[in-house]
């Protein structure tokens, strides 16, 4: 037996499915959220049809005693279609507002059709309108959540990529490595840096490692601790560590913080650090004599 709360809504969705789809598309155009620059007409129509089909299925089975939750099994289809549609739309650069308005535009065609049903008494009409509102609102909120989730994933992926990109170990000279650090150094990145560094030391048989912090804005106690730990690990592997690029500002700050660098050598610039490193591995830098 159909639920009385959704009987009229379901009736509209089933008897006039393509009419609703067309009018939904029309409202999207009117509200300016149909991105004809990003999606072709047939693509938009297909997406709307699929969404509405899944929505209808949810309304048919997923509303019990006027209550529903989009997390229930009956709404699984809608969630799946939405995930696909959102993914595609995020990828093509649709904004969250456009996405929500796109879904909310479904209200108008449903309202006009309810209004046209002459056999509904006014009290029932209001409760039907309320029901449509609740359903479509829930639909829109869920859409936004998926949309944000999709973006979060993109951000997370990019963060991961940046993490890998931002810890390059460069071989400057035979047995001399440098690690230019840029930005902030949190625990995850420090770990990444250290692993990368130690592996490269082994691979290249490095004897001197220059950790350059010219591009690090602030060195607080935790950053300092990460640096000193990395230096200690380098020493354990039999290589020497020079921390370079300590600006006057950072030097003062580190003193105020009471950070003791112990036996780790430090240099103000990578230039002096390199001269030092080359000397340590037995090279001499000389100006060539022009005869």
């Amino acid at each position: 037996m159909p639920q009385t709360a959704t009987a009229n809504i379901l009736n509209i969705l089933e008897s006039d499915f393509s009419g609703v789809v067309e009018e939904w598309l029309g409202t999207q155009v009117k509200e300016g959220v149909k991105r004809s620059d990003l999606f072709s007409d047939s693509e938009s129509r297909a997406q709307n049809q699929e969404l509405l089909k899944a929505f209808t299925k949810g309304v048919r089975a997923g509303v019990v005693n006027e209550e529903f939750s989009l997390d229930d099994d009956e709404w699984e289809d809608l969630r799946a279609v939405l995930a696909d549609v959102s993914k595609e739309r995020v990828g093509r650069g649709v904004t969250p507002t456009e996405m929500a308005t796109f879904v909310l535009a479904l209200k108008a065609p449903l309202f006009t059709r309810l209004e046209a049903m002459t056999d509904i008494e006014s009290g029932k009409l209001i409760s039907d309108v309320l029901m449509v509102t609740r359903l479509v609102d829930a639909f829109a909120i869920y859409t936004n959540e998926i949309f944000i989730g999709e973006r979060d994933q993109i951000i997370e992926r990019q963060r991961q990529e940046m993490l890998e990109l931002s810890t390059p170990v460069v071989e400057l000279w035979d047995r001399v490595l440098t690690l230019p650090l840029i930005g902030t150094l949190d625990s995850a990145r420090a770990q990444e840096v250290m692993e990368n560094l130690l592996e490269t030391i082994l691979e290249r048989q490095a004897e001197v490692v220059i950790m350059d912090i010219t591009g690090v804005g602030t060195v607080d106690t935790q950053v300092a601790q990460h640096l000193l730990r990395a230096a200690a690990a380098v020493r354990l592997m039999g290589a020497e560590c020079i921390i370079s690029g300590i600006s006057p500002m950072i030097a003062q700050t580190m003193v105020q913080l009471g950070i003791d660098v112990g036996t780790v050598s430090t240099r103000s610039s990578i230039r002096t650090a390199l001269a030092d490193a080359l000397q340590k591995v037995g090279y001499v830098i000389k100006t060539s004599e022009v005869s």
Partner: protein
Amino acid sequence: MSAVRITRFATAVSEITRNAIVHGGGGKISIYLDGRNEYLRVECRDQGPGIENVTLAMSEGYTTAGGLGKGLGGAKRLSHGFEVHSAPGKGTTVSMSVKL
């Protein structure tokens, strides 16, 4: 503001916000400018377990997280004004300011 002062204060703020994230499970940060534009004040508030003995926590080398134990005292030395309000179970609020 001079570059040194900016670096110093930024480090103090970094120190304190890191504490709020590591120990307090995250929190809120508010930034104020006093009426005569003389001071910038940053207030960091968390709802974490709080600090039992603030004086002890401020002392050199005291740590509960395996850190250097210099953060809180260091942050105080790096700012012009520094206040900690905390009690066990009540969260922690650190207010630090710098002369502009």
